[in-house]
């Protein structure tokens, strides 16, 4: 990557707290270069979804960002007025959600739901939006776009709904897509098709993706870089190939050993060692103490 080019997304030392003072994000720093897929991997409670939400500006009201900057193509989101920030986020980012069923309004047809965003937020004409959506449905290999556009969400299968949402996400040519566990709810064979599709569209459109997942298998297949999270802290960050060749942090190693592999059943599915968790706990405690000192 060109060191002079601005990263598509640059998160610098982001910390967020709950009202009870608990830190849910612990000085998270990461950058997503243009056109690159960055995986955020971790178990539940690791804060991976939280980071995606922070980028899209949809954090729950109880979570407060107390420190750090987020730069979207060089523009500091924290320095913008609320309205300008919404417009910028709306124009340059998109989301592929985990659950394609709840992400779609059950009482509206697919067609208008897909064009809505293009017309309302980007101010496109109806015809232009319509043509664009059809083009994207073709790209996600939906054979009968006419029928699908007239369907209600429940009339489509899970895989089809996710294709529709992928098409909608890429339609506005965003610079960055946050994909939040987009294949977790799907069967493995469908998951493979969807991952292929995301990778293909990502390559063709040159879109950067922040890919949130709990599955190291998916990380290995889709991403170029990866951040491993534990309790809201980035414990390891590396090129994906390097991470799988030689994981550095004990937690990363433990996670890899715990992930099932049918090719090697007895070397995988190893329970995480207590010592690793104890090490993580003291690492977090030390980081919190160091962080509190200047912050009172």
């Amino acid at each position, binding site marked *: 990557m060109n060191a002079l080019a601005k990263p598509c997304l640059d998160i610098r030392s982001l910390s967020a707290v709950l*009202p009870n003072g608990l830190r849910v994000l612990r000085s998270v720093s990461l950058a997503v270069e243009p056109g690159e897929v960055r995986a955020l991997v971790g178990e539940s409670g690791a804060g991976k979804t939280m980071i995606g939400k922070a980028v899209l500006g949809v954090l729950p009201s109880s979570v407060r960002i107390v420190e750090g900057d987020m730069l979207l193509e060089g523009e500091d989101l924290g320095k913008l007025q609320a309205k300008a920030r919404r417009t910028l986020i709306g124009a340059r980012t998109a989301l592929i959600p985990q659950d394609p069923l709840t992400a779609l309004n059950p009482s509206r047809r697919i067609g208008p739901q897909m064009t809505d965003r293009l017309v309302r937020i980007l101010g496109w004409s109806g015809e232009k939006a319509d043509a664009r959506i059809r083009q994207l449905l073709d790209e996600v290999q939906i054979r009968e776009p006419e029928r699908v556009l007239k369907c209600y969400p429940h009339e489509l299968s899970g895989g089809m709904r996710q294709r529709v949402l992928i098409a909608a996400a890429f339609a506005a040519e965003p610079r960055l897509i946050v994909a939040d566990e987009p294949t977790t709810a799907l069967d493995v064979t469908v998951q493979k098709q969807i991952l292929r599709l995301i990778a293909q569209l990502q390559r063709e459109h040159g879109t950067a993706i922040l890919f949130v997942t709990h599955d190291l298998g998916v990380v290995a297949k889709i991403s170029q870089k990866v951040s491993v999270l534990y309790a809201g802290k980035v414990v390891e960050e590396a090129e994906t190939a390097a991470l799988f060749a030689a994981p550095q942090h004990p937690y990363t190693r433990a996670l890899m050993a715990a992930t099932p592999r049918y090719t090697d059943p007895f070397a995988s599915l190893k329970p995480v060692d207590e010592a690793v968790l104890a090490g993580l706990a003291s690492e977090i405690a030390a980081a919190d103490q160091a962080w509190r000192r200047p912050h009172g």
Partner: protein
Amino acid sequence: MDEARISRHGSRARLWLAGGWLLIALLAAIFAPLVAPQDPLAQDLMLERLPPFWLDGAEPGYWLGTDSLGRDLLSRLIFGARIAFIVAFAAALAACLVGSTLGLIAGYFGGWADRIISRIVDVWMAFPPVLFAILLVAVLGTGLSSVIIAIAVIDWTRFCRVIRAETMGQSRMDYVENARIAGYGRIGIMLREVLPNVVPSIVALLSLEMGIAVIVEAILSFVNLSISTDDPTWGGIIAEGRLSIHQAWWVLVFPLVTLILTVLSFSQFGEGLRARFDPVLR
């Protein structure tokens, strides 16, 4: 997390305020002969339409003033509370027993049982409740037990509908199948697994229903269809107060305030109890 704490804090205050008022009213009702300053039925035309204690012309011992027959308003309210509470407890309990049982059966067994019970509920709810109550009392004759029966007969459907829906939701949980795996029979599962999970809703509804019973009783008294006109009831006092609103506003206002506070307290108390004792919400 914080929202939960705030709402728990709010629910505690609500529970104490509502419970406090109900306790005062209940104690007053139980010990009415001891706490009432005057005989609620004693008329004295020399003392008619005395204002409450802070206004000019008030008499000591008649704290909230008197009505147009010179009867002490506070004493009448206290004795009225007796009838209000008897009706509230008896009618709400009866409605609760009938409605919850049928709702539990309909929701848990489904099929024909559900279809029959739900149809009856639909038909029942098509009657306008107050007219239905007036009709029932007219047929049964006035009196305390008629009022209680009328309220129970009308309002069991409220329990039935809510408990049925709640039971259906609970019945779909895996722990119900789990109990079958453990070897429990249908009735056993309904009582052991499902019932405890709908009890908080029953308690909340029961409390709400007590408030409603108080209102219905007041309405029936208002149209002179409750118990004998001699006994003071809140509805009866309100009806009398309405006639002399321009000469003695207090005869209308105090019973109204008492009524509203009591009804509100019942519903808030139920919600507060539910929030406090439901381990799932906690």
